[in-house]
């Protein structure tokens, strides 16, 4: 698989490390009080639960052997076709 790093250019996926779903959001600073199930659920959603769609997936890759940038790759996981690679940093 070839991932086009927006900084380094196209490279084989062996240069990158994978970190899964890019759409989950860390509930920063939200420390659930006892019994606050909704707050806890937000953490469960972040750490454990995944859509794992059979189709287009937005996912995190780290250019470990290159520029060390974290990237959001939009990829169809049925055929590995990559439609976008963006830096995670704004």
């Amino acid at each position, binding site marked *: *698989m070839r991932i086009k790093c927006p900084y380094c250019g196209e490279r*084989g*996926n*062996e240069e990158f490390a*994978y*970190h*899964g*779903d890019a759409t989950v959001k860390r509930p920063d600073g939200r420390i659930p009080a006892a019994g606050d199930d909704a707050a*806890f659920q937000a953490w*469960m*959603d972040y*750490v*454990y*639960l*995944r*859509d*794992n*769609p*059979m189709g287009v*997936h937005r*996912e995190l*890759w780290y250019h470990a052997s290159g520029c060390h940038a974290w990237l959001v790759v939009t*990829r169809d*996981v*049925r*055929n*590995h076709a990559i439609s976008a690679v963006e830096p995670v940093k704004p």
Partner: protein
Amino acid sequence: MKYSIFSVLAETLRGHRGWKPVWREPEPKAEYDVVIVGGGGHGLATAYYLAKEHGLRNVAVLEKGWLGSGNAGRNTTIIRSNYLLPGNAPFYEWSMKLWEGLERDFNYNAMVSQRGVINLFHSDPQRDAFARRGNSMRLHGIDAEMLDRDQLRQLVPILDFENGRFPIQGGMIQRRGGTARHDAVAWGFARGADQRGVDLLQHCEVTGIRVESGRAVGVETTRGYIKARKIGLAAAGHSSHVARMAGLRLPIESHILQAFVTEGLKPLLDVVVTFGAGHFYISQSDKGGLVFGGDLDGYNSYAQRGNMPTVEDICEGGMAIMPVLGRLRLLRSWGGVMDMSMDGSPIIDRTGIEGLYLNTGWCYGGFKATPASGWCFAHLIARDEPHPVATAYRLDRFATGRLIDEKGVGAQPNLH
């Protein structure tokens, strides 16, 4: 019809004209007591045990392709129960016990071969970790032995002890572990289930799950709507996709695991060997091919095929410990879609939707679990309570923190 040397002889005389189909090709009924989604090893075993152990015969297995077209038909056939954690060990040992009687039970030779499974270690910390695991196994009543280099040399003369980047220090062996003919396992369960009245519906893809007031009542399929009193999901790599039809989000990612086979060879390797300092494990099939594999490709995928870097990484691992492989040729490679769970262990549980049961999270190791998974899932579906050896496989363990993480790598499925 019963398979035996006598039936083979009798049929030989008749030119093998009398053999009956291993399974019928029935039309779907409008309604079943239990519908199992997924005609892989686990789905078929579940149906078999539902019929055989729980007397439930109005059962259908719905398979989107041909029976065994998923991971059941593409795994590297290793069976073992060399698990560390108390949540796992009794379950896999129960599976091993079932393997030991399986062929006579379902009257199909699945070539269960207890040729031994060796895990090599290459450092002191690794030895300690194996000691911990082996002792845990022994306390669970599971066989395990530590091997030193000399013992290893005897068992696996083709290992390279001289030139290794990570020299082989020893190994742990489970002698009762080994291999089984993967397709035959699916076929044996299928035939056994069919004989007990289970409808095996091939090319019947589930496209929707109907839930009415918190209760699952049936499935939409490419062969029409099918009502069901209970629905068991055993879709392995497609679990998330199927579960979402009922609105569930799972702690699962689908990943690719590749496997490889060489051209056929005269006997070269008598046991299953796993490299401890790289990604490589290998055994020789009865047909003569060396069957080997290694690590996941490492990213979400439903493509049922992998990429180059993993192929090479695995072959490097092979050459690192068995340089005899150099001139042997890789004949075929393939991939399967794994249901990688967040702690690397499976889930056999209810779902919060009444009548909907879940069997998933088998990662790259669910072939060995096939009999026990079917057994326990059938138990859960039939009796609505978990089987004693599978009580830890709860869906809520991620919320409670009662994880079963054998490798200790945390909530990152591609690392398990």
